[in-house]
Structure formats: C-alpha cells, structure tokens
C-alpha cells in the first residue's frame, strides 16, 4: 500500500499528489514514470513522476481526471492509500548541455515537462519555456516553471491568459528570433507534439517528445505500447517514453490509442453511476 500524504488541486480537473514510495523516490530521474493500480479491480495506468523527495521518501504525481481511473484517483484524499505503485520505469531523459533549449508543455504535459526542464537548467542550459493550455484555469505550474526558466511564455487557446494562440505559434517566434537553439523538448497531447515536430523539422532542431501509449505492465512484457520509430518497432515503456519527434509515426499512434475509446466510456459511466448510487443511498 502506498499512502497519499498530501493533495493539492492545481486546476479544476488537475490534482497534485504526494505519495509515500521510498524506493521509487530514491531512484527517480527526469523522464521516469510509474504504473499505478488503485484497487483489486483496477487497471494499471502509467503516470509520469513529476518530482520526488528521497529524504521524505515521497514521490509527486500530477494527475488530470480524464478517464475512470484518473477520476477515481483524483477523488482520493490525504491519508488514503493506493494499492500498487511500481517504478521508476522507462529510460530517463538524456540530460546534456545543448546551450539554449526550448521546453514546451501542453496542458497537463507541463507536469511531465517540469522535472526535465529543471534538470536541463541544472545542467547549465539556458531554458526558454512555453506553457500552453486551453484557457487560464488550466495553466498549471506557472510559478514552478518560471523559477527554473530563463524566460517563460504562456499561451492559451482562448486568449484568457498570456498570449492567445498555440504553443507552436510561440515556438515559431523563438525559432525565428533566438539564435543557437540546440534542442526542443515537447510534452503534451499527441497532436501538439506532432505539430511541434513538424514545425521544428525544417529548422533541423533536435526535438524530443514523450509518448503516451496504451500500456499494461510498463516493463516490456506486453508490447501494447509499441510505436513505430523510423520504421522500426519500439516499446514506449522500455525504449522510451521519449523519442526523437522527427522519427515518430504519430498518425499510427493516435489511431492505436483510440482502440478502447468506447470501452473506456463504458467503464467511466459505470463508475459515475456507482458514485451517483452511493450518494443516493446516503440521502435515503
């Protein structure tokens, strides 16, 4: 059992968790993730490690309530326990000195980006960060990102905060005006990472993206996470989750990720009914 010691609501559907997991806390590196299973009926889902504290033996997860399991998790409170947490999994982000780097986070992807941006900064890079969201209330970790960035740009789709537009608009500006950008790190929804990779290709700037795929075990034993990288099959959980954005077959991955869309809705609705059921019962 893994006890939740603290929760913070970062945005209407986004919660930050601090969870006791001393072995994982000691070994976590930027880019690592964990697999989480809430209870005996639960599925195993991958969640990126946003941070860890080896001294207190805790790890930090930032979770957006989108499906059955993440909604159930986001309803949990400090003191509650999660049945299974395993990690740190995946190949850590290669952190090197590139000179100037641009870190691009979309939505909750910013949570995954933050430890990477921080590690890049600690490695001596000049870090320019772009944080994008649909609207102001969905912008997360702005102060944290600001603290480790040499410059931070915020964009919102609806213009309710920062610059109106997409992260790619801001990124294009930077690519056109800032000399010597050595690498771009982009984490967010697949269409965003695809757009970033398409944008950077003509500039010939090395672009790293972090792929979210179907996963069962997260340790290389099911192949559900397979992706096509430069025409070759790779397992995102072991070979990744980060890959060279210019080599990823995004279209194939986006289609694969839709495999269970309808069944996920079934599971989600069942969960919603169950919650509604309990409320009705307690009213009686």
């Amino acid at each position, binding site marked *: 059992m893994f006890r939740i010691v603290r929760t913070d609501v970062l945005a209407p559907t986004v919660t930050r968790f601090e969870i006791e997991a001393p*072995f*994982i806390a000691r*070994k976590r590196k930027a880019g690592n993730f964990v697999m989480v*299973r809430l209870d005996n*009926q*639960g*599925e*195993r889902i991958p969640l990126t490690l946003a941070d860890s504290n080896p001294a207190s033996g805790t790890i930090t997860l930032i979770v957006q309530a989108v499906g*059955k*399991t993440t909604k159930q998790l986001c309803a949990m409170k400090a003191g509650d326990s999660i*049945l*299974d*947490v*395993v*990690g*740190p*999994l995946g190949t850590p982000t290669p952190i090197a000195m590139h000179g100037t780097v641009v870190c691009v986070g979309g939505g909750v992807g910013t949570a995954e980006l933050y430890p990477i941006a921080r590690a890049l900064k600690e490695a001596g890079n000049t870090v320019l960060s772009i944080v994008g969201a649909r609207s102001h209330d969905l912008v997360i970790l702005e102060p944290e990102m600001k603290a480790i960035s040499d410059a931070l740009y915020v964009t919102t789709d609806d213009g309710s905060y920062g610059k109106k537009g997409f992260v790619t608009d801001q990124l294009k500006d930077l690519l056109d005006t800032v000399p010597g950008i050595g690498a771009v790190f982009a984490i967010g929804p697949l269409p965003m990472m695809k757009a970033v990779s398409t944008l950077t290709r003509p500039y010939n700037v090395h672009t790293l993206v972090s792929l979210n795929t179907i996963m*069962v*075990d997260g*340790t*290389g*034993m*099911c*192949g*559900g996470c*397979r992706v*096509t990288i430069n025409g070759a*099959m790779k397992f995102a959980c*072991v070979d990744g989750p980060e890959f060279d954005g210019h080599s990823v077959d995004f279209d*194939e991955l986006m*289609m*694969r990720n*839709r*495999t*269970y869309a309808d*069944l*996920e809705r*079934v*599971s989600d609705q*069942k969960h919603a009914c169950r919650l509604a059921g309990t409320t009705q019962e307690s009213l009686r």
Partner: protein
Amino acid sequence: MTASNPLKPSERMKIPRQEPLEQDPQERSTNFLEVSFGFDMDRTLVEAQRCLDCKTPYCIDGCPVGIDIPGFIRLVLEKDYVGAVRKIREANYLPAICGRVCPQETQCEEVCVLAKKLTPVAIGKLERFVADYEMREKLFEAPVIKEHRDEKVAIVGSGPAGLTCAAELAQKGYRVTIFEALHATGGVLRYGIPEFRLPKEILDLETERIKALRVEIYTNFVIGRTATIDELFDEWGFSAIFLATGAGTPTFMGIPGENLSGVYSANEFLTRVNLMGAYRFPDTDTPIRIGKEVAVIGGGNTAMDAVRTAKRLGAEKAYLIYRRSRQEMPARQEEIHHAEQEGIQLLLLTNPTRIIGDAHNWVSAIECQRMELGEPDESGRRKPVPVKGSEFVLEVQTIVEAIGQKPNPIIQSTTPGLTTSKRGTVVTDEMQKTSRPGIFAGGDLARGGATVILAMRDGKQASVAIHTYLADKRAAQLPSHL
C-alpha cells in the same frame, strides 16, 4: 506383491488406465472454470494399483526434479495422501501446480514401463489428487527448518523457477527475499496460464506455502529499476542472487499491419485476461477486444491458451494458424485435443503474410499462404515452404501473435559483467552459475522459452549451487561477493 499392493503384477496390468473427469466441452468453452477435475478418490486408488513399483524406477529419471514416484504412489495405496504429498514436496515444493501443467507424457509417464505395451500410470493425475486433497482438507504443515543461517539470498522473479529456488533455500535455513515486478506473484503462472488450466486460487495457496517458510516477498519491485543487482549486494546486503525473470518480452512476426487496432501479442492478450481479469470487464477496469472471428498465430502451449481464451471470451470462430503440420506442434497433445473439442479450428501448414485493416484502422482480415513441408532444418523438423499462388484471405477482427518470447532486457542492461547470448538469454553453466560470482540464473531467462517444470528444475539446481557457493565462502571467510 508388496505390503501396500496385494495384487500380483499380472493383475495390476489388467487394470485399465483411469480417465479424469472433465467439464463438458460445449459448456466449458463459455466459462473460465477448470477443464479437468482430475481424479476422485476411487479413481486414484484404482490407478495407484497399476504401478508395478519397479526395481529400477525409470519414472524418477524421467522427472526433471527427481520425485520419488513409486514412493509416493505406495503411500497413496496406504491411503496416506498427506504422506504422499509430503514425499513429493521433498523434491518439488509445488505439486498442485505440477500436477496440472507438467507435460508428464514426455517425462515420467513416457518412460513408465507400462507405456511400452500398455498405457503409463497416470502419475500427473495422482500427484494432483494428493496435492488437492491436502489443500481441500487443509492439512498442510510447513516443513520444519532445522538450521537457520545468516546469509540473505535474493530471488528475482516469482515464477516457477524463482518460487522453487526460494522454497529450497528457505528450507536450508537461508533468509530469502523474492522481488516481483508485477503486483502479484507467480510470473507466467499468473499472467500466462489461464484460469481454466491453473486456477489462481491454487497459485495463491502455493504462494502462501512459500511464505510459510518465512520467505519475504516484495511485489511492485523491478530489479534494474527500483534497485539494481549491484545495490542488492552492496546496500541490501544479499550474499547471492538468483535471476529468474523468465522470457517475458513478446516477439512479433514483422508482417505489414501489425500495429492495427485488434492485434495483440499473446502476452498482452493473456495478461489482460489472466492478470487483470479483463474477462470480467466492466466489473474490472481493464478492457479487451474480441471480434466475432479471431485468429491466433503459433503452435505452442501459449497459442493454445490464447485461442481457447478467445473462444471463452465469445469468439464465434477461433482459428489457430500454424505454419507446420500437427506433428511439429510444440503444444501438449492434451491441450490440442482439448482445443479441438472446444471447437477451435486448426489451420495447419498456413502462414500469415499480411494483416488487412478497415477505414478506422481496425483489423478486418488476415492474408495467409499455404505451406508444404520441405527438407529438415537445423531443428530436425521439416521446413515449411510456401506454395506459390496459394494466398487466401480470412476475415477476422482480432489477431493474437503467439510466436515466442525472449527475455526482458532490463536486468542484463543494468548489470555490468553479466554475459548474455545473442538471443538475449543469460549464459549459465550446468550449475546455473552466470559470468558473475554470486549471481545465478535459470528458467526461461537462461533457456529462452521452455516449460514450467524445467524452470523448477533450474531453481532447484541453483539452490544447490548457491548453498555450495555460500558454504565455500563461509569456509574461506571472504567478504561477500568478492
């Protein structure tokens, strides 16, 4: 005539081999309950009488872990079922599992003298009966550990090799810790072998018995990630390590269309069902997709498990596609027979060439070609060669590839100095020693894909080697693992 068996050998040879009770094929192809019920007590007693109690019991040599087979059968005849299962456990700590999944027909039963002219003694079913009896009557008592030792031994992986090695070393008095990457123990016994062949309840009970030996088990612990092998030595203070992580990485055929939705590796398909309980979705949260028509590719036991699982999940047509002929199928005869009874269609001498998708990127069909057998290849089996112009298309919505697994690379890539083969297996000598002192390996990690019982054999062998290694070190008074 012996004290336990009053019948003369000629009389014993007249008794026909007893047949186990089984669930009706029609009915069982729609549920996940166990297919075979094994023997009841009457059948057990009759079958036990068939044993000739040979002076030279070949069956013991045929058993990879050397169970005293005539010895336990003698106890069965005396109706001392608990004594019988204890006798088995001296050589094999997991009889309820072996009695179900061992291929006895190619081991102990194959060399039974009765097999030459008649049919062999049903050793496997007898083993299962006594193990189940002890379980049902709750008569298990953990063996007494006579001597306790200070050295700690780490076992990586809780499959058949790891569990066996843990049980053996714990009985020798070592402090044993098992590290398991998944959230539940058992390895392939948990995620690979379906409920209808090995109920998870049995596996849970056998695991409890390992724990009864004061073995400590960490689940959710990936060696190579959560801690490395060198950390186990240097920081955790282990004196020896047995690697038994199996062959869990699936391989794919490399034909076009493999990344369409609806294509699974056997590992993913079976893990979803067996480990995650997808057959009870949406009561469980892990979904699985099953088309009206399903094709499973491969000819081994994993392929059989997958295709029979597909049928139980509601596939109207479940095909097994295999490129060689029936004789070359590596699956157990019993499993092939059970599959056919359940309505599985075998497409032999057939090889998939391409997977075809629909507009939504879902599998809609598989293209195959017919094969014929040519000259024998390196494995001694006749090599299948394609028949020109024989391509045909089969409509299917789900495809499961069960063409083999290879070892997971995480430990090998995080442990300096560990020699591996081209196939990714860890290289060991006949005592299961690896290239690094204090590190031993066995089961599929060393073999690349074999049976549960051979994994157990390796686990047992490694326990002997580790015992010797630690005794030598104690004698030499060397600091650990130097």
